[in-house]
């Protein structure tokens, strides 16, 4: 009866930002990114990619509650970088990795088909 609509899980409500940024007031170069309507799929790859960046001192994500459809990514960087820079870099690198993966996949398919012919 009062169950929330199923689409609530993946449709960002009107007037809400997909990503909001919140700088830490006490620690410099630390910030939280609140990402609406995302889950472990995005949270975990972002976190692991951020761990590859030597300027990132801390990167973690949490799903605060299973019925709150958002994740919080917290980043703490060294002084020569900034959380925003690290965040953008991680997304760019992941994007390139997936693009690469798609290319090698297509190439591999062609290779397999030529063998079987």
């Amino acid at each position: 009866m009062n169950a929330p609509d199923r689409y609530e899980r993946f449709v960002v409500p009107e007037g809400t930002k997909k990503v909001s940024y919140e700088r830490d007031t006490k620690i410099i170069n630390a910030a939280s990114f609140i990402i609406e309507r995302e889950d472990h799929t995005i949270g975990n790859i972002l976190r692991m990619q951020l761990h590859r960046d030597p300027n990132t001192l801390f990167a973690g994500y949490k799903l605060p509650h299973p019925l709150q459809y958002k994740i919080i990514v917290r980043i703490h960087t060294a002084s020569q970088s900034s959380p925003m820079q690290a965040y953008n870099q991680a997304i760019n690198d992941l994007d390139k990795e997936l693009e690469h993966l798609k290319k090698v996949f297509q190439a591999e398919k062609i290779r397999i088909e030529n063998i079987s012919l």
Partner: protein
Amino acid sequence: MVGVSYQRFPTVKIREMKDEYMKFELRDTDASIANALRRVMIAEVPTIAIDLVEIMSNSSVLNDEFISHRLGLIPLVSKKAMEMRFSRDCDACDGDGQCQYCSVEFCLNVRCEGDQTLDVTSGDLRSFDPMVMPVDANIGKDFDEDSVDPSIQKKSGIIIVKLRRGQELNLRAIARKGIGKDHAKWSPAATVTFMYQPEIHINEQLMETLTLDEKEDWVESSPTKVFDIDPKTHQVVVVDPEAYTYDDEVIKKSEAIGKPGLVEIYPLEDSFIFTVESTGVISAYQLVINALEILKQKLDAVRLSDDAQENDEQFGELRQHLGGVL
């Protein structure tokens, strides 16, 4: 800092590729990418499924809701799904979801006239779009056209309901694009699994201190056939490392017979073996490609908006300024 990249270059090796099944190796990446890929394939690759049913008449033994639910679960060929629009963000029909860009109409009209029970199957669904139809529709047609024997007719197809003399079912259905996160009927994946590739090292020296009986006993202790004994040399050999299920049984056995370290097994943490089975709505290969595309779109969606960045830069300047004064 500009120009620095921590990107990886994963490699892929396809081992087996059929229409609805695929097995491949993914290397030089980590578990987060492998798991994201698996999660997207199961829950976020779009397909088409019946979402709205208008029943004109139904005198069958099943109630309207029951039949609607069954219709929703029928797999429909979804090659078009990636290009289609979601009804909720379609501007052509103001979100009522009944236009050519976001929906496909089906109708079904069957009445049983004979004394024999009539099966209503997915083959009775008439699609208004030849690109979107029940996955097994073609198999059914090949049978029907020439076959004389009515018992062979309609052997394929998914049974929706059975009718007796005088009963009828007449309905109109709207199929829409959706994702598995919304409802499992939209999931294109039957199973998607991945495992770490195991690396198995047998300590040959220690193994040779075992008698043949002990070796046989040890080989048998593995619930899956990972090891075997060479009939000529009587040496223990690894026959299928991937059959290992990380159950630790052989390691426990080694300890039990007082020879710990007989074998060392560890997972290669950057190598994954994937198996992908699709439901047939798209090919297994297309499922993987679509998943990569969707994951990329999701990443693009979580990029920071420009105004957020500007705000931060201003704040940064202020901080620098203050830092200079102090």
